[in-house]
């Protein structure tokens, strides 16, 4: 009988309870939406970051695979073709190819500035065994057609060059006219950046692929090659193969074989991947933790307001499980909403970003992949966060004893809270005491609001920090360390006379010689390949500077080294290091490192140019020069440089800076808008919910104040003072948090290529504070309008 009754009841439960659920959701819709958006932000970041990470990695893997991207590069000055068989025999080599490469200077009609680039040979028949190219248009050069070439896609597009056009360039000191028969992308130039440059500039860096015989004859390498490229057997250690290659190729002027980590294009992509995975790891958990807490707070409040109903339900015979399930469904509805928005937004943003990536990186295809796993983990994590937050509150509801639940709860007792002591503070008016006691009475909740707003502010600072950091990086790199407008490099070291003729060129205001040699550094077991630069004492253009922008120079016979190199080699200032020059006669020295300094971009190793010349046993020769030029005469200068034989490359610093800034505006700008938005969502979720909850708890009290003759403004003060104080407290806490986050990012995101200086401008703090304040004020205003609708009459008739 009893069992039967309960059965009937249980059958009625879901429908009635579900209707209550819908009503509860509707009544708390703004809060529910605010929480759903926080969930959505976390999920979206997760999906975007994980999706981009997946896509980028997968695209790279597929591209490298299909086009047999090399694992190791081994440049030489000139080595006979017959060595190819020996290279293929090296254990661990899966495939090997030799090729001829050379620097080129393009002469593009209508463009004053000389574009540098590379000519790379393709086998005269068949596809290369390593480093194939992807023809997007046209065909490969035909055997025997010496003037045919394939041009790098980005460069062709930047200059509007099409198949059938002719391109003129300087190759090995001679002028050549090449007919473009194909346009191609290459896995070696996904990030098409000129050596020594920071950012790709499609206009200023090009690659031409020519037939092997044609290129070899043009650069005087008949029957020889200038670079071996190999792929490795899976899992075979790279070092063993580079070692064998170095031994084999040492007699042919090999500066040392290197792997993908030193291949500039791949290094850039790897650093991007590192950044994405940092974002993917750090941000989503923050959002979801906040969402979990919000769900818990809102549900706890709902449970408190519905005590009587819960008691009634239980008195009717509903099980604890029914009650728990009811409230978990409430949380679930919010979670599902957040999940839906987040997955949708994340997928959409992911696609947008993918388009951006295809433009930025030159992939022939982009595999936009959002694995089921990403969605699945998003669902799982949301379920855990939101469900967990909800279950806790629901459990509290279920545990209520029906008899107790149906009585109104006793008035909150403030006498036990530390806020009671405020009585002694006579200067505090009563309304302000109410505000403070409200904060102190529920320290956990206040702390959460404080933490939520702080996290939001911190996230803002943490993301805006990138702009500050990069500003400093650009400033130091371009305005302190590399103040030249133009860098010129020669095909081979030249005498002092070449420097003087450069200095006499039109528009040149100041010039400094540079001698650069490839070296291998050894300290203990550590070994690094790098370039050693010789610069004049008192160099004003290209130099190494410390973090205070002071020039750091090497004393006679000693080296200055960048911090990243020193770290890899475990070197401190004052140590001695073995330097093997991997060019010419390949001498080995032991030299003292006089100073170690932090460089923000790339690595650096310098000594005085005269010292370097003496060490190398050569005369006063140089491999290039840094020039400061008169902006009005660049045209004439560029024209002269294009006509000067023996120039391997010209890089234009000012253009590089513009391009860098432009690039950052595009990529960083977009991310910052997205993350600022997400940080704002947290603030909205936390502030709105906490004011809304506070309002519903104190609605009665506030109405009483109105009855007593307090104006709406005065009542608003009592309600909103709490959030105002917590927000103001959150500002410094958020600033600290953001500073920590920025420091963490500066550490986590520094790569071999960049070091993000840890600098936060006052503007960033101000902006973050501004955003938080605007959100707090707008949330407060949304609630304030409810104060006008307080029902004073109802107060007279009801208890608490």
């Amino acid at each position: 009988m009893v069992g039967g009754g309960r059965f009937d009841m249980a059958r009625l439960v879901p429908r009635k309870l579900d209707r209550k659920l819908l009503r509860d959701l509707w009544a708390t819709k703004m809060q529910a939406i605010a929480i759903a958006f926080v969930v959505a932000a976390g999920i979206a970041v997760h999906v975007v970051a994980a999706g981009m990470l997946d896509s980028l990695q997968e695209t790279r893997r597929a591209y490298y695979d299909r086009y047999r991207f090399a694992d190791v590069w081994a440049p030489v000055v000139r080595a006979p073709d017959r060595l190819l068989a020996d290279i293929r025999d090296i254990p661990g080599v899966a495939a090997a190819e030799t090729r001829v490469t050379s620097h080129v200077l393009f002469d593009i009609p209508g463009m004053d500035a000389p574009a540098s680039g590379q000519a790379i040979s393709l086998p005269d028949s068949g596809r290369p065994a390593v480093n194939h190219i992807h023809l997007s248009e046209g065909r490969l050069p035909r055997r025997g057609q010496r003037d045919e070439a394939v041009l790098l896609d980005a460069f062709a597009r930047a200059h509007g060059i099409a198949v059938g056009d002719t391109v003129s360039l300087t190759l090995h000191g001679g002028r050549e006219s090449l007919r473009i028969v194909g346009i191609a992308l290459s896995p070696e130039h996904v990030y098409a950046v000129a050596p020594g440059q920071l950012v790709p500039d499609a206009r200023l860096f090009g690659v031409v692929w020519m037939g092997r015989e044609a290129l070899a004859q043009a650069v005087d390498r008949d029957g020889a090659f200038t670079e071996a490229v190999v792929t490795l057997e899976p899992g075979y250690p790279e070092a063993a193969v580079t070692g064998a290659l170095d031994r084999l190729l040492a007699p042919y002027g090999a500066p040392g074989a290197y792997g993908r980590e030193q291949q500039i294009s791949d290094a850039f992509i790897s650093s991007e991947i590192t950044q994405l995975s940092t974002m993917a790891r750090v941000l989503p958990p923050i959002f979801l933790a906040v969402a979990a807490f919000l769900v818990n707070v809102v549900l706890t409040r709902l449970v408190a307001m519905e005590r009587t109903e819960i008691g009634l339900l239980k008195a009717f015979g509903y099980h604890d499980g029914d009650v728990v399930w009811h409230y978990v469904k409430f949380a679930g509805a919010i979670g599902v909403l957040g999940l839906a928005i987040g997955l949708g937004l994340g997928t959409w943003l992911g696609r947008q970003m993918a388009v951006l990536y295809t433009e930025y990186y030159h992939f022939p295809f982009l595999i936009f992949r959002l694995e089921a796993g990403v969605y699945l983990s998003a669902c799982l994590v949301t379920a855990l966060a939101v469900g967990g937050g909800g279950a806790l509150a629901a459990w509290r509801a279920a545990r209520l004893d029906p008899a107790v639940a149906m009585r109104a709860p006793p008035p909150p007792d403030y006498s036990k809270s530390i806020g009671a002591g405020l009585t002694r503070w006579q200067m505090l008016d009563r309304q302000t005491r109410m505000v403070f006691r409200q904060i102190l009475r529920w320290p956990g909740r206040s702390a959460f609001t404080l933490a939520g707003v702080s996290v939001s502010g911190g996230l803002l600072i943490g993301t805006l920090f990138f702009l500050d950091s990069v500003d400093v990086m650009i400033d130091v790199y371009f305005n302190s360390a590399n103040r030249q407008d133009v860098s010129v490099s020669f095909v081979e070291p030249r005498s002092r006379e070449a420097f003087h003729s450069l200095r006499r060129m039109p528009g040149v205001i100041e010039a400094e010689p540079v001698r650069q040699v490839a070296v291998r550094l050894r300290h203990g077991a550590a070994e690094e390949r790098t370039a050693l630069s010789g610069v004049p004492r008192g160099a004003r253009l290209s130099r190494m500077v410390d973090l205070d922008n002071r020039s750091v120079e090497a004393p006679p016979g000693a080296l200055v080294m960048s911090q990243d190199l020193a770290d890899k080699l475990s070197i401190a200032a004052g140590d001695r290091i073995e330097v093997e020059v991997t060019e010419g006669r390949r001498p080995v020295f032991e030299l003292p490192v006089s100073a170690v300094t932090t460089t923000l971009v790339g690595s650096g190793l310098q000594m005085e140019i005269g010292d370097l010349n003496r060490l190398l046993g050569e005369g006063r020769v140089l491999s290039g020069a840094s020039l400061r030029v008169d902006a009005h005469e660049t045209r004439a200068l560029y024209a002269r440089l294009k006509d000067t034989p023996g120039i391997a490359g010209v890089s234009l610093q000012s253009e590089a800076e513009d391009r860098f800034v432009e690039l950052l505006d595009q990529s960083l700008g977009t991310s910052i808008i997205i993350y600022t938005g997400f940080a704002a969502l947290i603030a909205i979720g936390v502030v709105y919910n906490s004011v809304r909850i506070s309002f519903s708890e104190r609605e009665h009290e506030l109405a009483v104040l109105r009855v007593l003759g307090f104006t709406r403004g005065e009542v608003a003060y009592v309600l909103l003072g709490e959030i105002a104080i917590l927000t103001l407290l959150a500002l410094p806490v958020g600033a600290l948090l953001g500073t920590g986050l920025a420091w963490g990012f500066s550490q986590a995101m520094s790569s071999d290529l960049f070091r993000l200086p840890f600098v936060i401008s006052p503007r960033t703090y101000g902006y973050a504070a501004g955003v938080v304040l605007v959100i707090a004020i707008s949330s407060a205003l949304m609630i304030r309008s409810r104060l006008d609708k307080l029902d004073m009459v109802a107060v007279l008739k009801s208890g608490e």
Partner: protein
Amino acid sequence: MQDTRGQSSRDTACFRTRGLTKVYGSGASAVHALRGVDLEIPEGDLVVLLGPSGSGKSTLLNILGGLDRPTGGEFLFRGEDLTRASTRALTLYRRRHVGFVFQFYNLMPSLTARENVELVTEIAQNGLSAGEALELVGLEKRADHFPAELSGGEQQRVAIARAIAKRPEVMLCDEPTGALDSATGIRVLQALKTVNETLGATTIIITHNAGVADMAHRVITFSDGQVGNVRVNTERANPEDLAW
């Protein structure tokens, strides 16, 4: 709203209403809470409003207290027409002239007894000190306790102290003893009587307890939204002698 104190010489009635109506809702579902109330309540009177639930006495009190507006008719406080006063003017009216006592005390739980009183004296123009107000209701020893630490009767006396601390011209009490036992209820009524006599505040008390009527100057009985009967007591009983 102007300060109305100076106008008492022209009009001896504290409250005057003519044809006061109040309708909630509209059409078929309209509820007529007041159906034309004509009343005159002299300055300084202690008035008891009697009547069954739904007879309109609370609606009248709400309108007199500036918490609600009538649908029709006229309502004057010391000769000033408040029938169509703005929200802001009504707020100022409550703030300066009216003291409320509710059935459920409605103290601020986060303030001590003294602070609850001071909350009102802070915004009053010529208030008593919190100490004086609490002394009038005999609670000076419990001044630093929070509401959660006080009994129901004590809480209600704090509420009275809060209401009188601003020296109101009007005290409006809706079922002030409704939640209290008889001994406590009598203490509360004594406090109200003391306030009426020492401060001269016009006091209107709504009650279900007909016995309370004996302590009033004037007893108004309500039925069905109208004034049924007005009785003037020639002899008033002391609260402790009331039949509870």
